């Protein structure tokens, strides 16, 4: 137990802020790292949208600076680089650190009453492995031929030397591998910490659901990141050492040799759980936030946990629905379709529990609460449109169209992002000792919510109308030209969404240094992390707390009429 080795507080700047082994510092490092990359990925998205609405028109303001050779115009190669790096950055360098790295590091020890992660040095290493991965990815933008251009899914043979000759793709594979290594290190740490370092009385069924979400995510990380790691190693072998795991001979010479479909299997065995890796922490956060701000116990705590466990177990069994058009056998196709439909049941149970938590509550519509309710809305849209994608009859037409883009952005991007925003607004006071502006926060929510829904709902229309994704210019094919108005509308909404994020940036920076000083427990919430002082002292808990009740004992009649909440460390009266 970490209580056995309490190190003295570090004194040097390097030890305190850079190579710190304190989970709180690492959480903040992950947060800053993730937010910066989210910004970069967001700017890339804006450039993509610009090109789609105005094919061949120079990008305003930054175009001339970034693409001087073409006079600010995004050429097809740059366009492919942009969407590839947008996907990679948002998933691996944006949401993963901001959601799992920052939130996991911050919440797990504090919410289960531990003094630190169980492996603090591994924790530090996890951040620096990710940093290195980010650095390699960033460096790849500057090699000859530029960064990878083959989509974030990196399908061979396009991603082998057959389709991408430069070093960008190799560096991309190495970066993904390093980031994966970081996630595995983090995952092992989170799992062990949750299992071993829960304070006395913190039984499994008394853990906040945020911790449950992060715990299950970590299991998925540890199980499935190695799969993509191996896929990446094989890709590098094919690219650098001339093996042919993924490269077949042409059918005219017998079609022998490697198989590009092997990669797709490996990738999606990881890739589908990755969706849940990003969404499970958000689900956990939403479960908790809804209960906290509806001042009501999380409805069906046990079924929520059960649903999340079922999703975790099923997550890798449904991956085949990404490959319905690759020529899967009929039997496999039907099996994956059935399994995919089954996975909608636990998600539906979560919705039922969330809505039931809100029902007859006493809602405080704070910014975190708004974002949590926003997740219900956007994940509802994203999840329900998943039915179209799970059904082969409709997926054959919708596969690789903008319908898919809209669907997965709503589920894994928008929901995870809203969950992250909610979590940031919620834990910011504990993290930085200052309050974020509620007024700006609410403005940020409403100005993000409507454009976001608009962006991806228009994509559903485009996809239904047959607009394929990853096209540089939809006006070149006659069939797609009458859809250009949808592209323009999406772009306008996307720009509104992009502009709204500046409110967050402003609010975050201003509150970080000049915000109102936060009280110890501004939200009247009873989990263990709010029992300690702000700022959180070195080693969190002077004495390891003892938990005596669940995390959601809101409005319990036994508390009497004057208060509607109780700390987890307190005994319920009576």
């Amino acid at each position, binding site marked *: 137990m970490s209580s056995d080795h309490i190190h003295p507080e570090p004194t040097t700047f390097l030890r305190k802020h850079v190579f710190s082994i304190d989970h709180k510092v690492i959480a903040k490092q992950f947060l800053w790292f993730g937010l910066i990359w989210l910004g970069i990925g967001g700017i890339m998205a804006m450039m993509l949208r610009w090109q789609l609405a105005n094919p061949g028109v120079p990008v305003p303001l930054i175009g001339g600076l970034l693409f001087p050779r073409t006079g600010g115009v995004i050429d097809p190669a740059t366009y492919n680089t942009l969407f590839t790096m947008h996907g990679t950055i948002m998933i691996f360098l944006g949401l993963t650190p901001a959601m799992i790295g920052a939130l996991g590091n911050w919440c797990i020890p504090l919410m289960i009453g531990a003094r630190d992660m169980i492996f603090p040095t591994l924790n530090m290493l996890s951040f620096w492995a990710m940093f290195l991965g980010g650095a390699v990815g960033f460096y790849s933008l500057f090699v*000859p031929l530029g960064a990878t251009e083959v989509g974030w899914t990196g399908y061979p043979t396009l991603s082998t030397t*057959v389709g991408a*000759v430069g070093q960008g793709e190799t560096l991309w594979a190495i970066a993904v591998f390093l980031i994966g290594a970081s996630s595995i290190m983090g995952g092992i740490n989170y799992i062990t910490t949750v299992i071993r370092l829960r304070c006395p009385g913190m039984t499994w069924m008394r853990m906040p659901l945020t911790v449950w979400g992060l715990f299950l995510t970590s299991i998925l990380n540890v199980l499935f990141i190695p799969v993509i790691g191996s896929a990446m190693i094989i890709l590098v072998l094919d690219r650098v*050492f001339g093996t042919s795991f993924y490269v077949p001979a042409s059918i005219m010479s017998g079609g022998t040799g490697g198989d590009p479909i092997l990669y797709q299997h490996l990738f999606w065995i990881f890739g589908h759980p990755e969706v849940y890796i990003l969404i499970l922490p958000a689900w956990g956060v939403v479960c908790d936030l809804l209960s906290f701000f509806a001042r009501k116990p999380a409805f069906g705590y046990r079924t929520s946990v059960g649903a999340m466990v079922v999703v975790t177990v099923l997550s890798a069994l449904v991956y085949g629905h990404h490959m319905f058009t690759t020529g899967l056998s009929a039997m496999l196709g039907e099996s994956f379709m059935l399994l995919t439909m089954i996975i909608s049941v636990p998600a539906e149970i979560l919705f039922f529990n969330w809505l039931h938590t809100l029902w007859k509550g006493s809602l405080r519509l704070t910014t975190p609460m708004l974002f949590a309710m926003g997740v219900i809305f956007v994940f509802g849209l994203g999840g329900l449109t998943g039915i179209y994608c799970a059904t082969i009859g409709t997926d054959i037409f919708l596969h690789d169209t903008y319908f898919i883009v809209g669907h997965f952005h709503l589920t894994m991007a928008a929901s995870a992002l809203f969950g992250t925003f909610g979590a940031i607004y919620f834990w910011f006071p504990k993290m930085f000792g200052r309050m974020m502006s509620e007024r700006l926060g609410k403005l940020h929510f409403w100005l993000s919510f409507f454009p976001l829904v608009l962006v991806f709902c228009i994509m559903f229309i485009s996809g239904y109308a047959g607009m394929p994704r990853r096209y540089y210019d939809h006006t070149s094919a006659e069939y797609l030209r009458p859809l250009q108005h949808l592209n323009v509308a999406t772009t306008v909404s996307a720009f509104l969404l992009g502009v709204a994020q500046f409110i967050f940036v402003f609010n975050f920076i201003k509150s970080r240094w000049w915000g109102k000083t936060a009280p110890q427990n501004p939200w009247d919430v009873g989990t263990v992390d709010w029992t300690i002082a702000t700022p959180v002292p070195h080693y969190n808990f002077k004495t390891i707390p003892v938990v005596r009740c669940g995390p959601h004992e809101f409005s319990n009649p036994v508390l009497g009429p004057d208060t509607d909440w109780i700390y987890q460390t307190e005994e319920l009266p009576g």
Partner: protein
Amino acid sequence: MRGISWQGLAVAFGALGLLTSLQTSEDENPHARAPRDVSLVVTEGAWLRAPGADWFAQRAKAEPGRFTHDATAAGGAGGWVDSHGEYSLSEIEGEWAYWQWASAERLTDGRQDFVQFCSSCHGLNGDGYGRSGQHLRPTPRSFQQNKFKFTKVTADLPSDEALLSVIKRGLAGTPMLPWDLSDVQLLDIIQYIKSLSPEESGWRDVYSQVGDAIEVTEDPWTDTKERAIVRGREIYHGAASCHLCHPGYVTNEELRVIRKDPEGTTYRENLTYPALKDSEYEVLGRATKVMPPDFTWHQMRAGTTTADLFQTIASGIKGTAMPQWKGAISDEDLWALAHYVENLIVSYKDQPAARSAFMGGLRVSGDNK
């Protein structure tokens, strides 16, 4: 050393050795070679042949102040001087030739864009053996053979502008796309393509002629299109004898009348079909054959407007049986031919009913199939 198993290390190194031996051996088929260690940097600049004095006179108007004519240059013969230093003039055995300098940096940019966009078909070395070019007919150009089919110039080699317009327009009906790249990129690619000429040939040969696309003269038939078509039909089957390779669009009877041949003259079999022709263009060590298009059926590579057709017919198609017609027949007749061919395309291509009525009519009425 505690903790390290030497057997384990040996197995690891063995495995690594095995992996490197898994490398695909060099394939017999040059298309199928797995690209590895592709060089992306060109270290030396190159002097490449540039168009002649006429071209400079035109450019001097377009870019005032850049080019000046120096009467004393070229040993008193007179020549153009470029203030940017990009062009220069040389003499070999009394022949005066303009050269254009492509710097190593520019060729590197061009090389990288070439690898990025062009190499899948044209091959990483520009030899035409790209993986996507295998089994492809017509074959992708090899830039080592200095033959450019649809550049619409009468000289041996096209000017940068002529090549640029081919790349931007693409070749219809082939995988050569109209490329959405900026002129800067395309011109860099063009310099690189030119630098692929082997020593002492093509762009590196002092005796090569480089020309700009044929000027589109004024169409003398604008108000008399009907007459142009009639005239074009006569030239096509008469003076120009296009029907020797392309299909004849007349019956044997009509052909005899047009050519004023005596009764009983016979013409080639399958007159209403094109005839396969040899070309000078080599693939895998043997000359390829090309099919002259049937205008009512095949897609035209280099445009279907009268102006496009005028230029194509006038310049001929390099390396194939299609000669340069500019100078061989008058511009007026060239325009008439262009109108006739355009009329064939507009009236019958992709119109199954009209075409089968037309071609069927020719085939039943004569002894030509």
